[in-house]
């Protein structure tokens, strides 16, 4: 049997669009080329990968030589901007096939970039996209609400959340309100 490597896959964090949109801080643990890049979420946790479920409302094919797709995925709190290019062939081909509007589940890596006029944008480089149903979307809202509340409950007690306090001046109450509003939109 092959020896087990110490490699551990980065978990996919659950985050609402509203929180991801506020994300501004990106860092690496070490100088090593292969070490993962994290963004720091305002609720106080690092994230190298996220899992989102929402409604794909729009998609666009862009580029001539290097074709890539952009899409907008909407959750109860806002919009995620996703993209998939030739380095994500699986996601690109899946996205090419899906016709909006549709409920989709996206696994991807959050990326920060700054536009020439200085605004910071967050996009999600998709690793995979699949069509799901309404119930999965609702379960995701509950799941994301729970994990966001867990992070807010631990706020101030972890290294990452102290860093978030420094970078963003996070007010946990504001995020609790966002979670509450998101939950309120789920039909009983």
């Amino acid at each position, binding site marked *: 049997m092959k020896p*087990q490597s110490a490699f551990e896959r980065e*978990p996919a964090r*659950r985050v609402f669009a509203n929180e991801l949109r506020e994300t501004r801080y990106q860092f690496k643990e070490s100088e090593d080329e292969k070490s993962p890049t994290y963004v720091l979420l305002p609720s106080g946790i690092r994230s190298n990968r996220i899992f989102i479920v929402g409604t794909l409302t729009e998609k666009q094919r862009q580029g001539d030589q290097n074709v890539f797709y952009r899409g907008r995925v909407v959750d109860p709190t806002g919009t995620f901007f996703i993209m998939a290019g030739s380095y994500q062939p699986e996601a690109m081909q899946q996205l090419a096939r899906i016709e909006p509007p549709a409920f989709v589940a996206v696994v991807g890596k959050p990326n920060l970039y700054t536009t020439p006029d200085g605004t910071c944008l967050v996009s999600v480089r998709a690793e*995979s996209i699949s069509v799901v149903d309404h119930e*999965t979307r609702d379960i995701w809202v509950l799941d994301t*609400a729970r994990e966001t509340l867990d992070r807010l409950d631990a706020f101030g007690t972890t290294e990452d959340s102290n860093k978030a306090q420094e970078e963003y001046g996070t007010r946990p109450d504001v995020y609790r309100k966002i979670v509450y509003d998101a939950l309120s939109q789920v039909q009983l």
Partner: protein
Amino acid sequence: MNLSEVTERISRKLEAKGAQPDRQKIESRLRRLVEEFGVNTAEAERTVTGDLAREYNLTGVGSTSTELRPISEITPGEWVTIEGKIVSLTPSLSPSIAQNGIIADSSGAMRFVAWARANAPVMEYGHWYRIESAVVDEYKGAPNLKIHSGTTISRMEKDAPLLPSITPVAELKPGVGSVRAKVIQNWEVSHDRMLQTGLLGDETGTIKFVIWKEEGKDQLDLNTVYNIFYATVDEYNGRLSLALNTAMYISDEGDIEVGRNETEIQGALVHIAPGSGLIKRCPVEGCNRTLSRQNYCPVHEIQPEFRYDLRLKAVLDDGIRAKNILMQREIVEKLAGITLDEAVGIAETNPLGMDEIFYRIRNAVLGRYYTCSGNEFGGRLLVDSCSPVTFKSEELASLLNRAGGEAA
């Protein structure tokens, strides 16, 4: 006898206490005692150690090794004196090893090795011995008693009955362990020298066992409970297994309800790994390996008479941890809503062939929430039951309470 070895041992003992002895000085003192005064090496070692300890104002250097210690409290790096019974002797694997086996007292048991160079008296099975100034180091993650040339062994006129304490399977640690367990699975032996291998279990969990071929060793009977005394617990890739060659085992009355130590994870399927879907397996008995697209088995080469199978290798992610999981045919059939026969039918007529099945299964399960339970094996959850997560309104209500306090 080599004096530089003794020198090394003495200086290490002193260094362990924080002193920085001069090795040349130690060796010249030893040489003087041994060569000029005809003192035997063990006595010379004791004398020099004691003298130097006094010079460096150290306490507990010479004395620790004569103080009797219970086996269970000994940790690697110590010099010890113990009294124990030889409960197992195993054939030596190398000419430099005179004897190896297991020595036990009422507190526990430990593997020991007597080096050929030590010229130690041969110890007999079932007798008690007092072993002075042996050194304990770590071998394969477990403490191991080394009998070297400075160790004194004396046979004792003691014959106290020794009842090994039984350890629950879930609490076994590398080293020596005694269990009361039931044989729940017999596995195909994977090696010529192997007599039997399979799975043992008690109320707390299960563990793999091996018996190597050796004269006088019997196989265990399936579904029978055994008292197994002084088996060797090995660790490999973070998993423990039990080697019974050092052990004495006798079948016991009664039955055991074997605990399955199941793990349950709820999360989203975030990745479907290559090698999922419809696969071909090697038909050679006991092989069952996955064949390549060209029907090539890594061991049995080209196998045109393969068997088809369905499986799913994936990652289930709860947002905190990503877990590799593996599902067998029955579960994949249920989850993806496709039977093996249907999958084979589709694959043989569809231009994408087996890829088509991969895509169908992926589209059915990727990005959805499941609760999976099963046994963990090598960092992977072998799923034996899996069900989709459903939306629960009471969960919504409780989360609303948590988030808002005042419900709207």
